[in-house]
């Protein structure tokens, strides 16, 4: 009696569903990864996504950039004084938000090239603009300061384009605010944590965090997933614990991404 047996072992750690091709969005304790070219979405459940990698996945761009001129933005239709004799104006309609132009010094990460397996360097973005509501005083930009920024694109259908003096043909970004923080250290039990993806490099603080982010981004910058994983495996040997944790998680994520890509082909 002789027989050959072939055992097909398939381990599915993700589920495939047809939804609109959204960028990675955090939903409680799971991630949704989607590929821009089609409608396949992978869900990877993980309770402990390291904060930096989480911020990367949630952001559209990560850059080091210098803030340029600030411009105040008001309502499209302002209730300015009608009478020429009025000398005291109501400025509230003129002060609804601010736009800052930025000059990119270093593009660290772009989600579209990351998910479509393109070289980061193929992206030629040199400048961008941010928008911030006047009431949002959690963060702001000072002219000529250098920042490391996690940026989220403001959707074209955001109501600000209808109401404010913003050019709807242009793309504006805002600093990404995470569910947690990228900054190290224990949480403040009274006030929580600072969760804005913004580091003012001119303060000289958080240099180790900046270095960690840059190393992680650099490892993810090649087009080849294999090369990315090889880079991350090198980072696992780092003495930087944050870097190790993020690299380990990123490897698992990329392996899933690769499976989805293979499935798509």
């Amino acid at each position: 009696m002789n027989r050959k047996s072939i055992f097909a072992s398939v381990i599915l750690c993700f589920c495939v569903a047809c939804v609109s091709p959204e960028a990675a969005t955090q939903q409680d304790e799971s991630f949704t990864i989607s590929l821009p070219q089609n409608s396949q979405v992978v869900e990877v459940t993980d309770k402990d996504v390291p904060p930096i990698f989480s911020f990367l996945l949630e952001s559209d761009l990560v850059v080091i950039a210098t803030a340029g001129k600030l411009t105040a933005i008001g309502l499209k239709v302002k209730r300015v004084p009608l009478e020429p004799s009025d000398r005291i104006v109501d400025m509230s309609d003129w002060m609804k938000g601010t736009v800052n132009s930025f000059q990119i010094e270093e593009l660290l990460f772009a989600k579209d090239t990351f998910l479509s397996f393109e070289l980061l360097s193929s992206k030629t973005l040199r400048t961008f603009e941010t928008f911030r509501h006047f009431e949002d005083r959690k963060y702001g930009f000072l002219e000529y300061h250098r920042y490391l920024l996690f940026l989220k694109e403001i959707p074209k259908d955001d109501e600000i384009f209808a109401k404010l003096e913003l050019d709807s043909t242009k793309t504006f970004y805002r600093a990404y605010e995470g569910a947690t923080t990228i900054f190290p250290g224990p949480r403040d039990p009274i006030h929580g944590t600072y969760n804005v993806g913004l580091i003012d490099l001119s303060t000289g603080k958080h240099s180790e965090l900046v270095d960690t982010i840059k190393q992680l981004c650099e490892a993810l910058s090649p087009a080849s997933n294999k090369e990315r994983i090889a880079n991350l495996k090198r980072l696992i040997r780092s003495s930087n614990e944050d870097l190790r944790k993020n690299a380990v998680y990123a490897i698992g994520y990329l392996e899933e991404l690769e499976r989805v890509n293979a499935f798509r082909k």
Partner: protein
Amino acid sequence: MFHYSIDDRSKFVVCLHGSGLRLTNLDGSKLEPVMTVRNTAPGLTRVQGRIIYTRADGTTGTVEIPQKPIAAGKTQTFSLANLVTNLPPDAAYGGIELEYDTPKGTIITSVQSVSKDGDHVFQVPMFDPEKMPSSAGGFPWKADGDFTTIVYIKNETDTPRRYAAHLLRADGQYSLGEQIVKPNQTIAIDFRSLRDSQTPDGMGRLIPLDAETGQIAWSVKGGENKVLSGRSEQISLSEGVASTYSCANCCPDSFYNANIVPDWIELDFGSGGFMAPMQTDITCNQTLLGPYTVGGANWDSDNVNVVTVLGGELFTQGVGTATISTIWETCLYSYFDCIPGCEETIKYSSVAVTPLVEINGPTQANDGSSVLFSAFVGGATPTGYQWSFTTPSGAGNDPNLNFGTPTSVSTFATAKWFALPNQECPPDPNNTTAYRNSIYTVKLTVTFSNRGPITKEKSFTVNVPWGEAGKTLGNVSPGNGGPEIDQNSSGIWYVVSLGTWNLTTNPSVHMNIPTSSQFHSKMFAHEQIHVGQWAQPNGLLGSNYSNAGLFSAIQNLTDSSKDGLLAKISTAANDYLNTQDAVVRGLCNQAEGAAYNSSDSLAPQYLYQTCGRTTFSNCP
């Protein structure tokens, strides 16, 4: 030499049986039974019979094998494939019984199950059931690699029979207990499958996943020998092996000892329980088998007002005690002649039914919450209640649940967080979950007039869930309106004054922690320090925003149009506020340190403390 006439063949004689006729292969594909018959009689013989197959649910079905004439001295092979083509898909195995009408011993048969490609052949040994050895035996069990050992037990009679099967290993036994095999049914036992599925036996024992070898023992039960046949089959596809093994013991297994498990049980009124008779047997080779659970025992309770019993399941009826008796048949076989002697074995156990006492109430609550605990007593009338609590050794912050009515059937309590360990800061600042959860043991003692008190316990966790106790916002704003502007004689618009603008802070406190929590007043006081810091003109934070500063930012702005000037004022004012915001963010750690420095001394001095920090995670 036999002498007979054709007229003597008035009836067929049951002569040859085979158990474990495989109808499907290991992969579920159909197998074809093939029967080869040699007629050694001097005349024509006729062979007929039946295949008795077993479905997955244990039921059986029969397919008749039509009469086959075989001439004297001839050997013929018959395919029985057409007989099994339409069997139910779950009929995986069965038994085969052949009859012939020439004298005993004149027919030699061989039965096999063959795969369609001819690669797999499973032999079915045939034997004369009248010359069957004792209905007990043992086989080696091999389950390493892809080896599977199947035991086939076939009932050779038209009456239901009982049997027990065991797997013996050096480090323990696994017993299927007493089972029933239906008339003419073939049972297949696969201990490897029971190992892989980690199916517990009647005693709750498992076959370890790494177990690969052992000894299988089986025996008929019920005091009647030579009614069951058994054999084993070892199969390995990778090794190309399908071997059969049969070894009969001198006698069926004898009763060795028995008991009821548990032999004493205490039940709450209203609850139920189970008892099971356990029996250990001994083989004629003096090997102990079991204990295993016995089936078919009769049960009785001597006090049905306390507990009734049905098939070993206990149903409480009232408070008190009762004796449960269990009776079943056990048999001993004499060592010399294998003659059985059977009698009824009776075993006793005790049941005590106590009043049911339950604590109803939440399992957890936030610090400061008011919760209700209530007692439920069934089966007896209580004379008193006493609520109390305990905490782990070393708990600090004066643990207390402040029972409102500690001697009543129900009581309100106030959830108060306690510190464990008793230190002001969490042992692990990055994982404060355990420190934030205080686990009380709530105790209820109920007293009765006619029996001793009963005490029940319930775990109750008091949580401090507020990761952010509160925050204070500066709410910096120049207010409504705007600066005063004018146009000079050249038509240039310029700034005259701040007009109606008045740059103020209007700090607001947002507390997440509720007023009922012991930490609220402490944290509110902390936020009040921040409120003071936002005060103008001298507060640490508020002092950074001034009308003078704002006016300085806009006073020199001019434009040829009014709208142009307003746009410039707007941008300059935002720029000024941004700059001052940045200064204030730079003072965040200092402001926090000062606020903690004040609130740290306030009770309770736990959890919401500075804990040695000079930088705070809410400060960028």
